[in-house]
């Protein structure tokens, strides 16, 4: 018996939606095996990772807190990926949003005016947008590959952030810790549910889901983005302005990622610190694809990703497992998703082995 791989005549729609589910199942199985290798009961491990974090209402609210930045980044990325623009730079755009936004917050935080918070958020969004402008200009006018430029800019953004918290934005009364001063209430996001840390960022994320759903499904702009993503030469032939669409999608993603960054520092964190993001911008890439680039899928996938973050922390606290296990789960999820996506265009066919055919038809014909 052997397994043959053959191309499907048409891509399987069923597999398109089954593939993420399959990837999640495979990730859970592999996770269980890893727990076993670590000397843990796999069921207890998986329970600690995926059930325990959301076993109370506070856990659910924390899920929203973690999901918010991932959701904002992933929605922006989904627009880029629909247009076949491989922006890997959401992390850097998020960090620049946090940095520029924090600078604005620290400058204006003693004001009691009500416009201060919106202005700070806007600065964060603009910070991310300007950071995304760099790969957009390079792609449009110098024909560079946005994968490389956007990923390199992530590291530059991180180092700029570190420079800022070690230098100009460091709290003068902070005992030389690399942190900014704590933000005042004027520049802190309002809590949307009493007794939790759920903040306005989640509302912004849900707003992005709704708006971009309408834009992509119902407007000519969204249609054009899909066309250049599926078939750039058809878009060019039809007369769509490819450069403008590249600018739109990259800048939109930058702004949303920047908003995610400023929401983190003015929300749950409350000051600018070196570790603003535990890789939200990268996790958002996985979320975008796990959600099949569809707003509802992305919403669900971002909750799952938030759960993985929380599970990683829970595993560290309860089972003494390394925090990196959370990243391992993220990595496995992406790996299995890519592997399962192969089944959208291909299928496996089990062929009977040659041996049972040792008596070919002709010989049986002769014996009769």
């Amino acid at each position, binding site marked *: 018996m052997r397994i043959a791989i053959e191309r499907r*005549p*048409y891509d399987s729609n069923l597999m398109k939606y089954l593939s993420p589910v399959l990837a999640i199942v495979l990730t859970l199985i592999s996770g269980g095996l890893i727990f076993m290798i670590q000397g843990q009961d796999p069921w207890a491990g998986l329970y600690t990772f995926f059930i325990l974090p959301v076993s109370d209402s506070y856990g659910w609210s924390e899920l929203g807190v973690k999901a918010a930045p991932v959701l904002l980044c992933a929605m922006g990325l989904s627009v880029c990926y629909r247009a076949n623009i491989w922006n890997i730079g959401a992390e850097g755009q998020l960090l620049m949003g946090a940095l520029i936004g924090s600078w604005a917050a620290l400058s204006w935080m003693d004001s009691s005016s009500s416009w201060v918070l919106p202005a700070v958020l806007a600065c964060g969004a603009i910070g991310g947008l300007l950071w995304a402008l760099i790969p957009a200009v390079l792609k449009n006018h110098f024909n560079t590959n946005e994968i490389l430029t956007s990923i390199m800019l992530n590291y530059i953004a991180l180092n700029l952030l570190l420079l800022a918290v070690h230098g100009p934005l460091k709290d003068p009364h902070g005992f030389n810790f690399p942190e900014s001063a704590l933000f005042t209430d004027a520049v802190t996001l309002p809590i949307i549910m009493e007794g939790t840390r759920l903040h306005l960022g989640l509302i912004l994320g849900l707003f992005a889901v709704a708006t971009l759903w309408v834009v992509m499904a*119902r*407007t*000519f*702009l969204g*249609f054009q983005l*899909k*066309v250049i993503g*599926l*078939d750039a*030469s*058809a878009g*060019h*032939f*039809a*007369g*769509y*302005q490819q450069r403008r669409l590249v600018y739109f999608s990259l800048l939109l993603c930058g702004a949303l990622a920047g908003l995610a960054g400023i929401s983190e520092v003015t929300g749950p964190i409350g000051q600018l610190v070196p570790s603003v993001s535990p890789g939200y911008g990268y996790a958002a890439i996985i979320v975008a694809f796990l959600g099949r680039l569809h707003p509802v899928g992305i919403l669900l996938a971002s909750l799952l990703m938030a759960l993985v973050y929380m599970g990683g922390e829970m595993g560290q606290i309860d089972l003494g497992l390394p925090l990196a296990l959370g990243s391992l789960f993220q990595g496995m999820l992406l790996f299995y998703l890519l592997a399962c996506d192969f089944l959208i265009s291909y299928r496996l066919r089990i062929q009977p082995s040659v041996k049972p055919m040792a008596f070919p038809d002709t010989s049986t014909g002769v014996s009769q």
Partner: protein
Amino acid sequence: MPASHAAAPGASQPTETQRRSSENTIKSNTVSPDSFRIRCQNITKAYPGVVANDQISLAIRPGEIHALLGENGAGKSTLMKILYGVTAPDAGNIWFDDQPIALKSPAQARRLGIGMVFQHFSLFETLTVVENIALSLDKQQAGNLKNLAKRIETISSHYGMPVDPHRHVHSLSTGERQRVEIIRCLVQDISLLILDEPTSVLTPQEVSNLFKTLKKLATEGCSLLFISHKLQEVKALCDQATVLRQGKIAGTCDPRTTSTEAMASMMVGNQTTLGKRYRFSTGTKKTHCLEICDLTELSSSEFGTTLKEINLSIQPGEILGIAGVAGNGQKELLRFLSGEDLTSSAESIKLKGKNIGQLTPGKRRKLGVAVVPEERLGRGAVPDMSLSENGLLTGFLQNLIARGFLQRGRIHGYANRVIDQFRVKANGHGADAKSLSGGNLQKFIIGREIIQNPELLICASPTWGVDVGAANIIHEALIDLRDKGAAIIVISEDLDELFQISDRIGALCHGNLSPIKPLQHTSINEVGQWMAGVFDTEFQDEQLHSETPVKEYELS
């Protein structure tokens, strides 16, 4: 050789051509098996939706330079891949040195002594010539690099292909890289060399050097299969030619004695079965819809054709046909007209007196220009989108959008109208473009443009690969649009089609545009000569007219 029949006279009667070509097909099928380097019989290979090779038979003697001629999509590449073991045929037999063989892989083909030079080189740019060649050989064959370098030098000087084995490939010119590819085949014992359009990447000087090399190879007994659609080169180089058309053998000839136009006519179609001539234009307005003035532009693609001083004008209410063998500048002309490539000066192209040479495709569309590209999937339509969405693709100016929002009802209605009017066989407006057959998708794309009522329609190969019924629908629609006062340019390789629908006709050859004449004042033979680059046909004109009188084209 049975196929080496008498030369076709320059102005042969169409019936003569047909009789000859059918005779040849039969002959080549029953070729006698006396000492051929390679012989294949009744090779058939079908891909979904198209029979790429239909009962192809071919035989090449030792030392023979055999041309495989045909338009794009005629099946040349498929046949060549079969002979090199890349693709397995569905049916048919191959003999190599009179031994029946089943070619399973290129490696096996190489072991037999078959070498191939692809159109797109497969060399590692960061490695030297000798390293590249060593990579394609077995360990024993390659030996050490020093000896291999010596062998390369010997071969390159013997065949007049100077190449320094220690140079890095990235520093070599295209012509030199091709030499490396050829030498790579020659370091192995080779008895059949297949060359896929080798001259398309070369300068004229490089071409003549290459031909010297190839002729030398042939005199030493190596057989050559030379794939091309450039007739002059085939005439200059080859002893035999097999012409493919639409996957079938259209005929064989001796290119040294056959005129280029006779070969061209074999490539592009059977002239004897001229379809019914549609009605001529009843009158044009005395204004220019489109004017092209001294359009001289480099192609945007690396191996494209440079357009040279193209001048033409077209009036509302006429169809201008542009003939030519593919690769003579048609693609480039269409891209400059559609706006996918912009001209260097805006004045080169004028629409109703307005300079549009530097307007984007979208702006030209707003001015009433509609274009049907030659690629249906991947340019004319997005394969993974529904027909509704593909209608919107270029129909976005047809009141399908309100304040940026898609008007779904109207978009579906628009697609349904195209489907109904042009009898597109599809599973409703929600069917993916890729699920349609080529002909039905072509009807949809043409219909999508025609119901926009453009003032200028530019149409490439409107009925390529389309069945007769669909072709009639498309032709009728083009004629109707013309009668409504639109100017239409049809760029096609199908002379038959052009003589059915054009009011005036010209041809492209090497990026030059022939004179443009009213259809009644020219003949298929004259256009054939234009296609071969002979533009000065005034003298022969009178003779031709006596042979093919205008009244042959029946008016409908």
